[in-house]
């Protein structure tokens, strides 16, 4: 709880929320001090976002609350909707996870920032001036007010969301996973901006995240949430060093997957690309890159969005034509014209465990679908059962539908599907990025185990350096269509050669080693 002398701006006082009788939050007590950043950490479904919505009076229809939310001594759970209109934006403002969809596409950014000012009687000239000032404040000084959201990058849009939230100088800003959809470097910039706003303006910030690394770098206080309850609250450093709750310990352990032990993989190339060029018109998205992936080896590919890693992946999978260079899979030329039998030797697992299955198909049909490449073997049923068991599910799951599984289980199904044709190369495109840290640790362990047993080669694409460190033997850093670094993971992380790699590593949110070693 806050030190003496700190002003509590908003306090949750034994707040419980139920939606249609289902408890969502239970006995949540949390004080948000002015001029401080409070981190609220937990896995998906733990009630973090509901806590935020409760503080803005935007709980879904049918929600019943008990307990109190106090702002300046006033209980917000009892006030009317009309009074909320004066509190939202004025006292409590909020920004959300997805900057790409959080802004109205048909209004200019200036109009969206100044809108609430105009609606409350500020003159047009004054509202415009304030909008300009707030956009300058969030580092968008060079962006004219008449720009539309689609003309800005994700990071710029999140800045606009922040400008919009601080338009009326709120005293509390709630940021719900504000950087989850952003690149590491952009994430670092946005977090710095938030910290500066808190320090300069004396705002309170409630930062909701699943990423302990993020709170370690920015928060003064941290609350850990599980199943609608706050299990532990402490000053940030104390929480990392001396946590008491076993759940906090699990979360912390899973947030720092151990780096893979260095090992020597004998050269036995299964995938080899030489001087690959993929150009769209005059723009070279992939500009003459070469890589070799050996049997049983994990190769990490990192870079910011737009650096060309997805384009390169599609080219390696033979889904897109290349304008230069060659790709060889198991010694045979690969490309858009490759045979089905050749295609069966390389599989892919994508990021979104919800969008990558047809919801009306059974798991059996999903998992056995790749057999259209090889012809359906007589023992297809047995192989489907074996594939599910290999990824830690059971044969009994074959007749279920995707919606019956959690995100982590769906990713296991995706892996089972990818492995059914016994490929040599598995491409994992942000395959664990959408998972909670504890589930992520389990899936990483599964991948490790599968590689040891089946001798698979992994191409592991990720923006998350800690994950790459845990799974990869070698790492390639990509920037603007070119490779800027390529080497053993331990070497690259310990002594990066290029400035860009150094920048990426520095920007990645990390829990300081000193905070963790004392407890483990």
């Amino acid at each position, binding site marked *: 709880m806050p030190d003496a002398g700190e002003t509590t701006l908003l306090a949750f006082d034994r707040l419980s929320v139920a939606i249609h009788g289902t408890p969502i939050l239970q006995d949540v007590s949390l004080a948000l001090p002015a001029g401080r950043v409070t981190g609220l950490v937990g896995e998906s479904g733990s009630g973090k976002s509901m806590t935020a919505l409760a503080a803005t009076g935007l709980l879904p229809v049918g929600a019943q609350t008990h307990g109190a939310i106090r702002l300046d001594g006033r209980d917000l759970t009892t006030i009317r909707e009309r009074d909320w209109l004066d509190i939202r934006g004025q006292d409590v403002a909020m920004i959300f996870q997805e900057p790409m969809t*959080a802004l109205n596409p048909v209004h200019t950014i200036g109009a969206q920032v100044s809108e609430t000012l105009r609606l409350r009687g500020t003159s047009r000239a004054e509202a415009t001036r304030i909008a300009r000032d707030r956009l300058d404040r969030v580092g968008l000084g060079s962006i004219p007010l008449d720009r539309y959201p689609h003309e800005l990058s994700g990071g710029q849009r999140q800045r606009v969301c922040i400008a919009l939230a601080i338009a009326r100088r709120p005293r509390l800003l709630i940021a719900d996973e504000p950087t989850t959809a952003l690149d590491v470097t952009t994430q670092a910039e946005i977090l710095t901006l938030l910290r500066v706003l808190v320090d300069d303006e004396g705002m309170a910030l409630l930062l909701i995240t699943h990423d302990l690394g993020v709170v370690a770098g920015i928060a003064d206080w941290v609350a850990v949430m599980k199943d609608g309850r706050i299990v532990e609250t402490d000053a940030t450093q104390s929480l990392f060093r001396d946590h008491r709750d076993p759940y906090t310990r699990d979360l912390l352990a899973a947030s720092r997957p151990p780096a893979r032990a260095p090992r020597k993989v004998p050269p036995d190339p299964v995938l080899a690309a030489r001087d690959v060029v993929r150009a769209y018109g005059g723009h070279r998205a992939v500009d003459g890159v070469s890589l070799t992936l050996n049997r049983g080896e994990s190769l990490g590919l990192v870079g910011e969005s737009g650096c060309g890693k997805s384009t390169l992946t599609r080219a390696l999978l033979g889904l897109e034509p290349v304008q230069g260079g060659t790709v060889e899979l198991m010694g045979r030329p690969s490309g858009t014209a490759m045979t089905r039998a050749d295609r069966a030797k390389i599989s892919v697992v994508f990021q979104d465990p919800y969008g990558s299955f047809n919801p009306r198909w059974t798991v059996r049909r999903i998992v056995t679908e790749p057999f259209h490449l090889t012809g359906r073997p007589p023992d297809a049923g047995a192989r489907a059962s074996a594939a599910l068991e290999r990824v830690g599910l059971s044969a009994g799951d074959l007749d279920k539908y995707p919606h019956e599984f959690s995100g982590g289980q769906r990713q296991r199904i995706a892996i089972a599907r990818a492995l059914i044709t016994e490929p040599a190369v598995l491409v994992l495109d942000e395959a664990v990025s959408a998972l909670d840290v504890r589930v992520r640790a389990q899936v990483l362990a599964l991948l490790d185990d599968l590689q040891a047993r089946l001798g698979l080669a992994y191409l592991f694409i990720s923006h998350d350096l800690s994950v790459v460190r845990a799974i990869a033997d070698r790492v390639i850093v990509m920037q603007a269509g070119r490779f800027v670094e390529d080497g053993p993971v331990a070497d690259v992380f310990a002594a990066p050669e290029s400035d860009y790699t150094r920048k990426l590593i520095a920007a990645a949110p990390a829990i300081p080693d000193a905070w963790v070693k004392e407890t483990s």
Partner: protein
Amino acid sequence: MTVPRPFDDVPTRRPFPPPGVTASLARMWRALLNRTVSLLAALVVASVVIFGMLQAVPGDPAAFMLGLNAQPDTVAALRAELGLEGSLVARYLAWTGGMLTGDFGTSYTYRVPVAGLIADRIGVSAPLAAYALLLTLVIAVPAGLLAASRRGGVADWGVMGATQLGLAVPNFWFAMLLVLVFAVSLGWASAGGFPGWSDPVAAIGALTLPAIALALPQASILARVLRSALLDTLDADYIRTARAKGLSRRATVLRHALRNAAISVLTILGLQFSFLLAGAIIIENVFFLPGLGRLIFQGITQRDLIVVQSVTMLLVFAVIAVTFAVELAYTLADPRLRRR
């Protein structure tokens, strides 16, 4: 206890005109030019199809006009006079060339220029379509807004029920019902006919019942489309953003949801206007209105093929022009379609 908020509002200058505007205009003109070219191409294709189809229609207009006992040489002479002789290509070029100069040919039955016939009829059909469209909007927009903002409530059920009825009732039957109630029983309006525009009040009065009959099913469709478009939009993240920054539910719907929903409604609206212009044949017959629909209907029954051909071409032009206007309206409504 209040915490101070020491933001410094530093005055800033903003550039005028905003950079990029000139380039943006240039791109818009280029897009306009592209659309115009495709519009012209569509017209040429349509004229070929219409011309070709009417060549295939059985029945010789000259023989029809002269009756069963006509002498073959009289028929031949009339055919020549009507411009029915000569090669297909020559006749096509004569027809289209004529239309470009405003000459739509001469009606076989009325023996007057088709252009004059059309001009008279447009004076009824175009105002009727516009009137019906206006009524459609006046009914559909509030109904759609009401239903969407009271989702699942009594108002929503009411609107959904009423629009279901509006869709199910055939408009000519509804037209007859209107005549029975408002013209025959109450005597508030005339049962049919058109007094001409010399008395605008009477003219609008005569168009009111037909416009209502035309608007009812259209408004039912549009209200439902608007409702579902609004409901989709109300789930969007930017609606949550708007609410979180302190906009009331009503302001959120009107300022943020409506314009985004309008983008999908525009498509339907364009189709509806074309339908109202071309599809009023039955309603014009019920109300004895001298409109384009009646003209084309009479043209078909009397083998007045040149009238059919020219009116059809005109309607095609109207449909294409409306589609063109809708596409332009998209660019105005959705800035993502205007590239800088």
